[in-house]
Structures are given as structure tokens and as C-alpha cells.
């Protein structure tokens, strides 16, 4: 079963545990500056919003790459950067409409979310379940459940 990251900003407290888990997994250090998931704070609105790659099916980054360094992981569905092939041209960073592929000046390569090979550490680290890793065919399940809970059973039974 294909799974997908599911983000519910309403549950996010802005603690950045996800960013640290990401950087630890991928860079071996606690370093929010190197995280592939970012939490944005909208201070005046009182909102925290985690944001990362959605793993598009027809991924702009993958199609744009001139050296085929971004490839589909058939197991997880993620679009992974092959660092040994990446030439650091940054075309993918321009092609991505969401800004979730970024250049790493230290390595000279681009980096993006690869779902940690199927065990995304951001989801494991999140203390409030704002980030979960769920059935890709049912990411709307939680919202459906919330609306279902508001259904008035009395109306249909005619009571």
C-alpha cells in the first residue's frame, strides 16, 4: 500500500521536532537549517504550518532534470535525488511550483524529501500528530471522520 505524508496544520505547535528529526536522518546533525520539511509561523494569525514535498505523480522536478538525477522510488512513490548524478544545475528548484526542492551549497547538490525510504522521521518525531504517514488513497479520512461526526442521525431516522 502506498503511503503519503499527511499534514494537519491545526495540530502543529511549531516546536520544530520534525525539522530536527529530518536533519538528523539526512545530515547526521540537529540542524533545522538543513531540514527538508519546514514549519512556517504566521505570527499575527496564530498559525503554524509544516510544509514539504507532496511527491507529485508527474513531478515537475523529475521532468525538468536534464541528467535524470531525480527518479521514482517504486516502493514509496517518492521522487529521490541521486546525488552521484546531480550536477547542481538547480533547474529542478525552478521547476518545482512549491519550492520544496532546494540547493545545498555545502554539497553542491539539491535535496528534497525522500520519505526517509518509507519511514519518515518527521512523522515519528511529531508530538501532536500534525504530521502522519498514512494510506495515500485516504489522506482525507480524518477530515471525513470529523464531518461524519457532525452528521445528524436523527434527520435520517425521522425521529
Amino acid at each position, binding site marked *: 500500500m502506498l503511503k503519503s505524508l499527511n499534514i494537519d496544520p491545526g495540530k502543529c505547535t511549531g516546536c520544530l521536532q520534525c525539522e530536527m528529526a529530518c536533519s538528523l536522518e539526512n545530515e547526521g546533525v540537529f540542524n533545522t537549517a538543513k531540514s527538508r520539511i519546514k514549519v512556517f509561523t504566521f505570527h499575527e*494569525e496564530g498559525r503554524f504550518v509544516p510544509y514539504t514535498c507532496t511527491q507529485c505523480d508527474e513531478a515537475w522536478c523529475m521532468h525538468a532534470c536534464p541528467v535524470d538525477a531525480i527518479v521514482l522510488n517504486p516502493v514509496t512513490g517518492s521522487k529521490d535525488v541521486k546525488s552521484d548524478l546531480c550536477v547542481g544545475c538547480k533547474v529542478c528548484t525552478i521547476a518545482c511550483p512549491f519550492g520544496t526542492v532546494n540547493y545545498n551549497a555545502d554539497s553542491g547538490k539539491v535535496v528534497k524529501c525522500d520519505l526517509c525510504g518509507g519511514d519518515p522521521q518527521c512523522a515519528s518525531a511529531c508530538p501532536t500528530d500534525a504530521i502522519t504517514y498514512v494510506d495515500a488513497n485516504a489522506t482525507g479520512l480524518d477530515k471525513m471522520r470529523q464531518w461524519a461526526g457532525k452528521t445528524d442521525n436523527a434527520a435520517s431516522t425521522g425521529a
Partner: protein
Amino acid sequence: MAWTRQILRVNLSEGSCIPEPLNMDWANQYLGQRGLATRYLVEEIDPQCDALGADNKMIMATGPLTGTMASTGGRYSVITKSPLTGAVACSNSGGFFGAELKNAGWDMIIFEGKSAEPVYLHIENDSARLMPATDLWGKSCWETDEALHARHQDPQMRVAVVGRSAEKGCLYSAVINDLHRAAGRSGVGTVMASKNLKAVTVRGTLGVGNIQDPARFMNAVNAGKKVLAENPVTGEGLPALGTQVLMNVINEVGAMPTRNMRETQFEGASKISGEAMLEPRASDGKANLTRNGGCFACTIACGRISTIDREHFSVKEKPQYWGNSGGLEYEAAWALGSDTGVDDLDALTYANFLCNEDGMDPISFGATVAAAMELFEEGVITTQHTDGVELKFGNAQALCWAAEQVATGTGFGADLHLGSRRLCEKYGRPELSMTVKGQEFPAYDPRGIQGMGLTYATSNRGACHLRSYTVSSEILGVPEKTDPLQTEGKAGLVKAFQDATAAVDSAGLCVFTTFAWTLDDIAPQIDAACDGEWSPERLVEVGERIWQLERDFNLKAGLTAADDTLPQRLLKDAAKSGPAKGKVCELGDMLPEYYQLRGWTADGQLTAETRSKFGLPS
């Protein structure tokens, strides 16, 4: 490991920024943050120096766990000599600034001297330079934060700043970071402003990677996160209601200092409680609380994100205050509310916003206003002093007016800048000041919670709840329940809390974790992160060493056993209502035993044995 082993020395007189290696001998004895920075301070300043003179130094210090994934591991402290108390000051803050400093590769920054012109320190990893801040002087913390982010074109930069109150010499000004987190107490912001240092901006991209045993560390971190999540206080109460979960609880037990501590219960408590912050208001159907927010790495997230009712008198004509910002925490709600007798939640939230916007400690501010209100009701302060404002208990308009005056240092605000003790002395009624060592009380009346009386009297930074939060034991039953109205055993309890808290602070963790964590949960995280062995026993020893060092500084600064006391009101005037009715604080029953447990003489001096046992500098 876990330390970056590098500190930055900034000489503001000379304009120099010079890196130097961390003294690892001291790190092994004092761990980090509060303890380690105090060791540097003791070495480098004359305890009798003028706190606002060029000879005082100010240290911003992280701990070994700051910047890691350890829950709440994002804290830093500002350590200096306090202008409010004349004692050692150490004010701890969350938010994101501390972790950013660590990510930039620095364990601490030592500021010395005084700049001739206003400056700010700008750090990008190993690059640190002083920049002109003349154009920022006279701006609020919020305006300065915005201006600096715009100037550097870097939304990810973190900013710590002082506001207009500090520039004008308010003795309880805070250092504000991330807009609404504060190194709040003892006037550390006043010291920063006295050095003509307006702000510190940091961007760190190096990360914290020097963990001794990363796999073991993550196991300990995850175990710790689980304990916090499953505990009813850290897993449910604090996220839902914040520290404001306490308002109704403390009022019920009769330990809610009210109207400058004349009473111990506040009839308006439920109107300004955490529960009240969730109630939809009439005007727009929204609650005061928008949501909870976490500091860096914190899996508790007790922080409040709030709005003020746009129809409220305080902001009706001021759309700049209509957005969300840091909301009321228990201490602020108490000081701005119960202590002033004001039960208007929106007025309190507005005053709290102003405390963040211009960097005032809301505890000391609220308690100073409360003292002024009593002076007003006694007829000592009159409308002649207050531009016609009726500065009476319960007057919400007067509270908001006072916050505006103090924020900008105008009019009667200059008198309120003095703090409660100096204000009451100026008007000839020193007995009306509810302070210890010149610092205003926090939100627990020691007539109803006896251990807190000893806590306040012996706190090394003046009256403070965060030096030994025995409320945890006496009210909440953590780690075990003790009777709040009894004094027996409280000397030992206070000492145990003081020592453990000093260690927790020095690690870079938040003391709120200790509602759920004991040192048995904390030590494995430090032990896996740092080289050497860090057992719970060693942490207790480090904590006690820190306590003794702070005490030694204060004695050398000129404080004596006579300063380890409480205002007469708490020792002589019995509580009028509630479970503590008829009780005073029986400090005298606890203090001698406490001195003995500490290894001090009957007049509060460290014995030669104690000095030698902890290896204190001479």
C-alpha cells in the same frame, strides 16, 4: 561533547568580537548555561560593581542540550549582576534564539564594557560583528525585530532585543526574543541597554552534531518525550490551559496573592483563568486563546497565542494590537490581574502584549503597579502624581495606562520604573513593598504554601518561584505530596528542588519538564550527549555547587542573612480567608534548618568545609 566548546567575547568598549575556547574544567563542574555562565561571571566581575556600569558583564549562555532534539532543549539564559537586587541575576528564556545561537557554533557570548553609541551584534555562524543601531534606539522590541529582519533580508534569523523601557532605565526590563519570549526577571534587559546594546541577531546553520552517543541519545530523548506525553500535567493540562491551569487551583487553596498581598484569594480569579481564555466572547464569538505554541524542541507546548477583543477599550482605536501574539501565562495573569485586583481578561492581555512589546517583566511590573495602587489608596500617591488617573485596585483602565507609561518611560512611568521596593521607599512606606532582595514576588502566597516562603527568602535572585517550585509537591503532589500548611521537612524539600532546578537549567532544558521528569529521566539524556559520566547524583552535586556559587557571589556583593527574609505582611498579617485562614508564613521554623542543610553558619555564611567540598573559587 554537546558543547560547541567555543565562546564569543564581545568587548563593547573596544568594538571587538573574539572567539575563545570554552573552559572545559568549568563545564565539567557546572555543566552549562546558568551554572557555567555564573562561574565565568564570578571569575570576571567584582561582585560589588555597579550593575549598570561598564564593569558589569552580561552573558548569554546555552546548555549542552540546547539545540538538540531533547524535549524543551532550546533554552538560554542571561546571566549578569542585577540592577534590581544587587544580587546575581540569571533569567531563562525559551523561544528559538538560544537554539539558533548554538547552531551558529557558540556555547555562550560574554558582553563586556560599554559601547559609546547604540549597536547590535550580528552573528552568522563564525562571523560576528557589531553594527550601528542608532536608528533603532527608541524603537520597541517589536519594531526593532521587524526592522532587523528587513535589513538582513533573512526571515530565519532570530532576534533578542531590549525595548524602550530598558533604554529609559526601568529596573525590571527583560530581554525579549522571538517577539514574545523573555529572559524576564531581575532587570537583565536593563543591563543590556546600559551597555548601549540594542539587539543580538543570530543565524546559525552549522547544526549541533557533536553528540557523544547519538543512538543512545535518541533512545533517551524518545523515552523522555513519551513520559511527558503520558503525564497528565505535561501531556494534557499544560497544552490545553498553559500555566494558567493553575489560576483556579491556587485560588482554591488560598494561596493567590491579591491586591498587593493584602489577601490570599481573588474573587475575580475565574474571570482571568485558563478556562476563561477558552470562552467565546460576545463581540466576535472567538476565544481569547487562539492556540497553544511550543518553544524550540518542546513537546509540551504550554505557550499561549492570544488575541484581544477588538471592541475592548484598550485596543479599539489601535488595530496594530488586533493580531495574535503571546498570551497570558499564569504569572502574568496573576501579577497583572489578581495582584492589582483587575479581573478584565482583555485588559490583562493588552498589558501583557505591552510587556512583550517593550520588554518589561510582567511579574515585577504588575507587582509594582499593585504597590502603587496601595500607596494610592493610602493617599500617599494622588492624582497629582498620576495625571488624574484613579490608580485604585481593580481599575482596568489604570492598569493599561500604567503599562503604556512604563513601556515608554513617560510621566508616572518613571516612578514605576523603580520597582516596588524603591517606589515604596521613595514614598516613605517601605513596608508596603512585597519583595525579597528587591525583587517582586510571584504568584504563590507563602501563607498558603509554606515552602514557597522559604523558597522566596533564600532564592539567590530575590523572590522567585523558578528557583525551587515546591508548589509541585505541596499542591500538585509531584514527586510526592506534602502539606502546604506545614513547615516540617520543607527545608530539605526546598534545598532538593533548588539543587535539581539548577542542574535542569544548566542543561538547557525547561523546568516545566520536571512536572513529569525526575533526574532519572534527564540524566540519561545528558549522559548520552556529553562526554564523561552524568548520573542523577552528579547532577544533584552540580546543582548544589551552582547554588553555593551563586550564594557566595551574593555575600561578596554585600548581601547578608538579613536579606533572607520576607515582608512583615507575610510574617505577621494572617490570611483572611480560605484553607490558610489565620496562618502567617512561619519562615523562622524553616530557615535555621535550611542553613544547616546547606552547610552555612547561623548567620548564613558558607563554612570553610562547604567551600572546600564544592571546590568554590576563593
